[in-house]
């Protein structure tokens, strides 16, 4: 029994409501945070930071955004890419047109604008449900792709329609090395993850989950479906918008609308489902699975000394990745987060099987 609940008593409701109730969990999370904030930046090389960790963090953030909407409120969205795009282009235009505003405020306002768009495109959710709703959000996705290509004002009339992010200057702190970018993203991710966790374990989160699990019953106990759904859309697109800003400003630097295409939306959806719907931790696990695993699979043959043609490697990557998705779902349909939980449960019982 490595994982020991006995002997840890919670004597107040406040203690019982803490995010990490067990000492083991608290030690674990402290260790992870220490590694993330200090260990990784010290040890990781540029490749790891720039090509893997930064995208991973930003996509985790976006996945948290989608998870709030899909995993907690049960509204299927295929428009997360569009919300990210709205965030990115808003921040770009704010920085361009109102240079006197501090960049951090631009980021925040961009998130708010994304939230506004989220509310507008969440309106149909009042009538449309389930898979059918996915189409409403797809409409947004395609419309946004089109608008950012077509409406030249958004891209400041650059001939090709691609735009470039300004220098990342936060009150004099110029973020230009990879390590700083990593810290910046990490800060955003930690903050948002904490806020999201708080939200989902308070009233708003519970009303989202109620709507998700059974909207009719929710209405009858006094939750207003419209209010709950729209607030989920708003919060989710705020987070997605913020992730979009980071993706554009920090990861890509310069980008075209294609960076936030339907592919991005689908990938985020995969992350949430694989990681675990209705779990903040799952968003991270899912993002890791979907972003890091293919890269790993791509490099794996070379690592173990097998020389295959590039095409073969990439086909194998597809096949193995697809197979792993299916295997993981069969193993635990509720996602990696759940797998983790069951693992903990087992550790609690260990060495007994049940």
């Amino acid at each position, binding site marked *: 029994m490595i994982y020991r609940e006995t002997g840890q008593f919670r004597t107040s409701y406040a203690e019982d409501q803490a995010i990490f109730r067990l000492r083991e969990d608290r030690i674990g999370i402290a260790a992870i945070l220490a590694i993330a904030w200090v260990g990784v930046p010290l040890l990781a090389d540029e490749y790891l930071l720039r090509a893997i960790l930064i995208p991973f963090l930003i996509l985790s953030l976006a996945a948290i955004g989608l998870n709030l909407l899909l995993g907690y409120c049960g509204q299927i969205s295929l428009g997360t890419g569009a919300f990210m795009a709205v965030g990115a282009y808003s921040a770009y235009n704010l920085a361009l047109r109102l240079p006197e505003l501090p960049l951090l405020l631009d980021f925040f306002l961009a998130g708010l604008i994304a939230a506004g768009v989220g509310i507008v495109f969440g309106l149909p959710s009042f009538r449309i449900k389930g898979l059918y709703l996915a189409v409403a959000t797809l409409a947004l996705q395609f419309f946004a792709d089109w608008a950012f290509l077509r409406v030249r004002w958004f891209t400041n009339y650059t001939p090709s329609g691609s735009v470039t992010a300004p220098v990342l200057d936060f009150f004099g702190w110029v973020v230009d090395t990879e390590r700083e970018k990593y810290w910046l993203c990490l800060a955003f991710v930690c903050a948002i993850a904490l806020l999201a966790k708080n939200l989902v374990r308070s009233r708003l989160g519970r009303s989202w989950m109620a709507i998700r699990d059974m909207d009719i019953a929710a209405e009858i106990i006094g939750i207003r479906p419209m209010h709950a759904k729209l607030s989920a859309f708003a919060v989710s697109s705020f987070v997605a918008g913020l992730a979009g800003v980071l993706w554009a400003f920090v990861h890509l630097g310069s980008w075209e609308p294609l960076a936030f295409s339907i592919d991005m939306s689908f990938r985020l959806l995969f992350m949430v489902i694989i990681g675990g719907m209705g779990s903040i931790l799952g968003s991270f696990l899912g993002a890791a699975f979907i972003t890091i695993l293919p890269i790993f699979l791509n490099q794996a043959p070379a690592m173990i000394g097998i020389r295959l043609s590039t095409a073969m490697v990439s086909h194998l990557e597809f096949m193995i990745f697809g197979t792993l998705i299916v295997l993981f779902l069969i193993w635990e*349909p509720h996602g990696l987060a759940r797998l983790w939980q069951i693992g903990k449960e*087992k550790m609690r019982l260990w060495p007994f099987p*049940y």
Partner: protein
Amino acid sequence: MNALARPAPFDQPATPRTALAVHNIEVVYDHVVLVLKGVSLEVPEGAIVTLLGANGAGKTTTLKAISNLLHAERGEVTKGSITFYGEEVHRLSPSELVRRGCLQVMEGRRCFGHLTVEENLLTGAFTRKDGKAAIQRDLEMVYSYFPRLKERRKVLAGYISGGEQQMCAIGRALMARPRLVLLDEPSMGLAPQLVEEIFEIVDRLNREEKVTFLVAEQNTNVALRYARYGYILENGRVVLDGPAEALRDNEDVKEFYLGLSATGRKSFRDIKSYKRRKRWL
């Protein structure tokens, strides 16, 4: 009728064969939750056997283990064996089992909401091969048992009332002409008259057509009246079993399941605020 599915009375051996034997099974949900901790029971051919027990005792789980439906709930039989007429159940798919005549009426109705009542009933006849006429005849039979269903035949099952759904689910099972029916709380949500009627139907099918029944029931009173043998489950274990009369006369059963204490039935109004539950363990 269906000669294959139902052996004619004269080839019945003197001592009835065992239709169903459950031997010391363990069931685990989600790889970690142990729910049944060694349950054994036996249902002789042509009998009505009832399975009693409090909420969460594991009645539904036992029935699902028998009809091989645990899979979809991420449950698993990890130990023991279940045989249906001598054949290991776990080798058969649920539909294969139905084809051999073992059919479950699931708890909580589970009608197909987007199908009309009549379509629901007809899905019950999916495995039958004895022609349209026979199916039509049985449809009429079900309607004669449940006239209410006939009135609502064209309505989507998702819209009918709870009790009507329960009738629909039972009727659907009868349409399959099973040899062994696993009934999970048939009386739930039915008006008292209908509860009696359902058990009358069970009894009639049992007597006239030699259908075997294993009934999980909360309504102990009725169940023990119609059943021949009973098992009482508690916390995933069989704690008591015996012929129905014996159970009915058991003091504990009397008090805790039938509500008959030495002084007769108590009014629900006069129940003390708490009393110790009967635990056999």
